């Protein structure tokens, strides 16, 4: 086939490694939507993209770093946040975005998440929550609702799920929001805000996994999206304790936390560095 046009065919082509398309995400998967929302936000926010980095862990969402045409790091399972922490502290000029999944960030990487939030490392963490381990074929996750079927809970999940915004809030995150991939405008605006926010920002994106999760729980792809539309309510500043994900009762979306406190680097400079050194740096 002959290439006739060199003009971009998609508004995000300049931010994509088009030579790596097609991507690995399944039909009906929500990660691509969350990903393009994230890229749109990065583009529209006006941040210096040459100084922007995407870090991912392992899993379906973790493949995000592989498709973005920025400096991008696909690290080990659960370790995107500590990797990003080292990168940000070593070069505070970088805008560091962590794009990864719920299994990666909250099971194997849970410890790193709470500590980065506590330290208030200036990162933007976008978590695609599809309620299961998609890449390995649909196992139970720390976010799987009670009773849901997965390949490792064949008769139903006996455990309770994390309320991620509550966890982020309790750990000290300065920006916390939740949207679904159906709420693309709100999501994009939210990521944009988070990018421009100094401090640890966390955005949970509820996302369908029809192939591995929906199928086993008798939930057709369109039904999932319908639930995102009909069984959600936008309630900004809702108390984080009310944010459990239970579509039978209804799921609250919105921006829940937007506060200011000094970042990890600001506190380190203020507390640990000699004043003369800071003044020297300022002068330079």
């Amino acid at each position, binding site marked *: 086939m002959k290439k006739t046009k060199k003009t971009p065919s998609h508004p995000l082509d300049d931010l994509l490694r088009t030579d790596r398309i097609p991507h690995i995400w399944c039909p009906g998967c929500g990660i691509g939507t969350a990903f393009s929302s994230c890229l749109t936000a990065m583009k529209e926010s006006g941040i210096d993209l*040459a100084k922007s980095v995407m870090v991912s862990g392992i899993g379906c969402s973790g493949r995000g770093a592989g498709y973005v045409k920025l400096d*991008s790091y696909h690290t*080990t399972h659960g370790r995107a946040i*500590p990797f990003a922490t080292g990168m940000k*502290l070593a070069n505070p000029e970088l805008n560091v975005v962590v794009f990864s999944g719920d299994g990666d960030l909250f099971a194997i990487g849970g410890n790193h998440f709470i500590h980065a939030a506590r330290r208030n490392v200036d990162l933007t963490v976008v978590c695609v929550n599809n309620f299961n381990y998609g890449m390995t074929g649909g196992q139970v996750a720390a976010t799987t609702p009670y009773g849901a079927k997965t390949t490792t809970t064949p008769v139903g999940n006996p455990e309770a799920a994390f309320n991620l915004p509550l966890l982020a809030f309790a750990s000290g995150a300065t920006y916390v929001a939740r949207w679904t991939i159906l709420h693309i405008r709100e999501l994009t605006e939210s990521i944009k805000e988070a990018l421009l926010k100094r401090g640890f920002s966390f955005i949970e994106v509820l996302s369908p996994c029809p192939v591995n999760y929906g199928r086993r729980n008798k939930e057709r792809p369109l039904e999932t999206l319908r639930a995102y539309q009909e069984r959600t309510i936008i309630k900004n500043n809702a108390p984080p304790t009310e944010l459990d994900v239970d579509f039978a009762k209804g799921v609250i979306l919105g921006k829940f936390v937007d506060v200011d406190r000094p970042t990890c680097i600001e506190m*380190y400079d203020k507390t*640990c560095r000699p004043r003369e050194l800071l003044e020297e740096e300022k002068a330079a």
Partner: protein
Amino acid sequence: MKPAVLTGEHFMTGDEACAEGGLAAGCGFFAGYPITPATEIAEHMSARLPELGGTFIQMEDEIAAMAAVIGASCAGVKSMTATSGPGFSLMMENIGLAICTETPCVIINVQRAGPSTGLPTQGAQGDMMQARWGSHGHYEIIALAPSSPQEAFYQTIEAFNLSETYRLPVLIMTDEIVGHLSERVVIPKEDVIRTVSRLTAKGRKDRFKPFEPGPRGVAPMAIAGEGYSIHVTGLTHDEKGYPVMTVEAQAEMMERLTGKVRQNLHDIIRTESYRLDDAEIAIISYGVSARTSLAAVEEARAQGIKAGLLRLITVWPFPEDRIRELAKRVRGFVTVEINLGQIHLEVERCAGGGVPAFLVGHPGGTIIPPERVIDTLKETFKR
């Protein structure tokens, strides 16, 4: 960061000397987690780095510490961490990431007796094979073993230089005894300390291939934020850095990762020979056990036994050719180490059955007295 050289004569521990060596090499980032007997390195760095413009962070565990070190190095700052056995085990995952992504960094393991929690305050050399093979998959690694605080200082600089030259994690396999030993350490003037920094990316940003081998088989490194839009992954990847899930790509990547070490052994391997020219028995040792061995050589010679010492300054890659060459002219080998036979296995392998190889080992917790080495020399090499 600019090297910070604490020129002068000092009385310091091996742990402190490692920290000062790192600073003299230009280390600007340290991420760690407290663990006996390596904690003093983190403590020293926590005081020194912020006043020099660098950054110290105590992470939530050693997994995170190692991840942060790699992240910082990818951002262009020379980075290191320090730990001991249990923490070394936790670091293995991301040491593999540093190998696969070719990220320079230095890891100091102040060894204590294991397995598991073992003897936290007492020394051993039981992690030598873990240093070689502890992360999954096949790879090459560089590990040094200092015998004194003075050498800990120089080896940490050397570790950074090797790491920056070959773009891989370099290990300092010291131990509790050297780590907690206070001795004279002379730190020279800055201008006589040789420091090496990685080759960085140059040229057209759209054509740059981040893993295309350059001089010595090592690719110049693009730093995050320089506009090269690189992709770095722990998946098997091609020269562009893109994941490729094929047998061929795996073979090509493995050739790059192992070749840069295997093709430069002459530049990497460092040993020290003592009275080996006319030796009938070659003692092989490293780290604190080399001091035991040195005393044993002197005493054995006084008793008429022609012993010599090959001290391994770099333990990995193993000096196979040197052992094979010695095997042609000595009557046997004795390996002295505080474990129950690790480097001994390598010596035995390279001796190839031509001459016998014996072990003077120890389960860990203290140094091996020279008398035990002499007894072995006498028993096994009776005329």
